[in-house]
């Protein structure tokens, strides 16, 4: 498929601070791509370089095959929806939406038709003569959207556009945005720090951390197969454990967790003796009162049990005092499926143990010299 946006080894430095540190990114035509990351990770800077408000220190940006790296924003076929909406306060809704077309010197008959269409698209018919100050947050959001979409951009850039809305409205707008995007077929690049938002709307997610893309993939890939601890932690809840590889027969890898717990993972990925970091999603831990037939089950004590509407979040401590968090679907009318202090049995499928990374054991990696602590003990 043709790439609508190509970001090639782009770096952006502000003084001594490197905001974007060598990013490569291809966005396909008609795709909904989300840049997900914590604040200050560089996702907004990356977006602003695509829209033209920032110029990369290094690297280049292509839009539909054309190098736009040095083009000012008004010469690019992209439009942005701003976090603060940035509606022109001196113009009414109609004039706000018509602004872009006027700047492009579109004939006024066409402007009239396209503006009406855009306002209809975001269901704001009847509000044409309102000033932005007379609109609610959600309505402002729609005007901002209509104002950008009416220009028929090749790519629509959205900078945390839903951040200022309340939770209910935000969820409704998520669905609506996604619907709009698939209907119009415009490429969307969406910046957010909200993982739920990213999961609901995106075709692909690029998880950004410290100026770099940690992982990019479809929503399912990134959620099911996080490649780093950061991705696992940031996208969805995760139990991240440090383990030692005990054995690997090619089919099953046995992992020991500080002697507290032994887990199995699909074999063939790790060498015995290595230490590794693994991730287990809370919903993948099955918790039951009765001992399952599976011999891999392990015992744990229930700590806190939190009701979260559709499920319960259960804090567990295994016999070797390893903490885990599990989510248990709500069944029946029990407010608390387990009581604190109760002994339960946990089961984790091999396939649900995700290996994030592995390192050689210390003895291989570093020349064996006794640590300072060991020396002290020897004296």
């Amino acid at each position, binding site marked *: 498929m043709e790439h609508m946006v190509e970001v090639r080894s782009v770096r952006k430095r502000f003084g001594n601070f490197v905001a974007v540190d060598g990013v490569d990114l291809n966005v396909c035509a008609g795709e909904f791509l989300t840049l997900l990351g914590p604040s200050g990770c560089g996702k907004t800077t990356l977006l602003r370089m695509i*829209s*033209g*408000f920032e110029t990369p220190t290094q690297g280049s940006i292509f839009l539909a095959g054309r190098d736009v790296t040095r083009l*000012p*924003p*008004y010469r690019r076929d*992209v*439009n*942005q929806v*701003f*976090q*603060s909406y*940035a*509606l*022109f*306060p*001196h*113009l009414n809704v109609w004039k706000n939406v018509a*602004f*872009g077309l006027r*700047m*492009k010197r579109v004939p006024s008959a066409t402007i009239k038709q396209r503006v009406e269409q855009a306002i209809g698209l975001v*269901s*704001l018919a009847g509000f044409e003569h*309102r000033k932005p*100050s*007379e*609109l*609610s947050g*959600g*309505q402002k959001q729609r005007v901002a959207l209509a*104002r*950008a979409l009416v*220009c028929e951009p090749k790519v629509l850039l959205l900078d945390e556009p839903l951040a200022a809305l309340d939770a209910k409205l935000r969820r*409704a707008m998520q669905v*609506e945005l996604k619907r709009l995007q698939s209907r119009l077929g415009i490429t969307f690049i969406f910046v957010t720090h909200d993982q739920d938002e990213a999961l609901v709307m995106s075709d692909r997610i690029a998880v950004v951390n410290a100026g770099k893309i940690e992982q990019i993939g479809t929503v399912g890939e990134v959620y099911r197969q996080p490649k780093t601890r950061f991705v696992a932690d940031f996208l969805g809840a995760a139990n991240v454990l440090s383990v030692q590889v005990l054995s690997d027969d090619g089919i099953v890898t046995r992992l020991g967790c500080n002697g507290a717990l032994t887990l199995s993972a699909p074999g063939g990925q790790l060498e015995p003796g290595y230490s590794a970091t693994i991730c287990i999603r809370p919903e993948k831990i099955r918790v039951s009162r009765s001992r399952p037939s599976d011999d891999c089950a392990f015992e744990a004590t229930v700590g806190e049990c939190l009701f979260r509407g559709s499920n319960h979040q259960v804090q567990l401590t295994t016999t070797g005092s390893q903490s885990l968090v599990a989510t248990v679907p709500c069944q029946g009318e029990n407010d608390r499926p387990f009581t604190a202090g109760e002994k339960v049995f946990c089961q984790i499928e091999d396939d649900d143990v995700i290996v994030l990374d592995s390192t050689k054991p210390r003895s291989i990696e570093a020349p064996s010299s006794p640590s300072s602590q060991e020396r002290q003990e020897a004296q």
Partner: protein
Amino acid sequence: MTQAVAIQPISNVRRPGWRGWGLFAPMLAWLALFVVAPTAILLVYSFFTGEGIGEVDTHFTLQNYQRIFTPVYLDLFWRSIVYAGATTILCALIGYPVAWYIGRAPASRRGKLLMLVMIPFMTSFLIRTYAWLIILHEHGLLNGFLEAAHLIPTVFSHPLNILYTPTAVMIALVYTYLPFMILPIYTSVEKLDPSLIEAAADLGAGRTRSFFRVILPLTWPGVAAGILMVFVPAIAMFAVTKIMSGGHIRLIGDEIQEQFEGGGDLPFGSALGMALLILFLVTYWISAGRGAKELRGA
């Protein structure tokens, strides 16, 4: 999807109680004593009959106003309007970029830059005007520098003849009133949300159109305040014109001063003052009301 919307933004402003009026009272007293009362006296005097050297007869007459509409005084008014108008335009053209620069500077530097704008206020106004005499004089600093640097084109007189010309008056007027233009525009520029400028660029507006379609309409309140604060005092300017023009150029302010000082025609001076007041009100109406609406409704 569409929710109910309050048509009018809800106002949190309470009507001030007596405590509020108490806080405002000094201002009211000041206005009453030094603005309303003198204006009322002026109004009454303007209908009296002047009896020559400082003498006033309390007979009602419209003669003073009729006299304003004679060519001599209409000419004087017209010249004052032209000088004040030119001063306002020049101040706006010079002041806007300066105000923009200060308003867009990092917040930590804005205070220092504003200080620079206000430094001239620390010296007496007359001293500053006399300083211009030294600078612009035939053998003054400016000519000395230009001659030494051979910067005067041959078509001009050597040395440059600036002092005691309209140019000198304009220099003094613009110099005096520039801060009054910069400060209100700065306030508007500082409040302008930078993402609006980005939005304009994003929607295809180049620098020029971004300025005229977004930046200027949104900073217009500052410009309007600046126009008011420059045009109104500039039109009534006196003394400086006399000093800088060597007495060749008289504006309405000089005329009024002469009528009140040294045994002039007090009622006629009052009528001139009232005419000036009407001119101020018109200026205010144009800059704050109609003009602003026209620009904003773009």
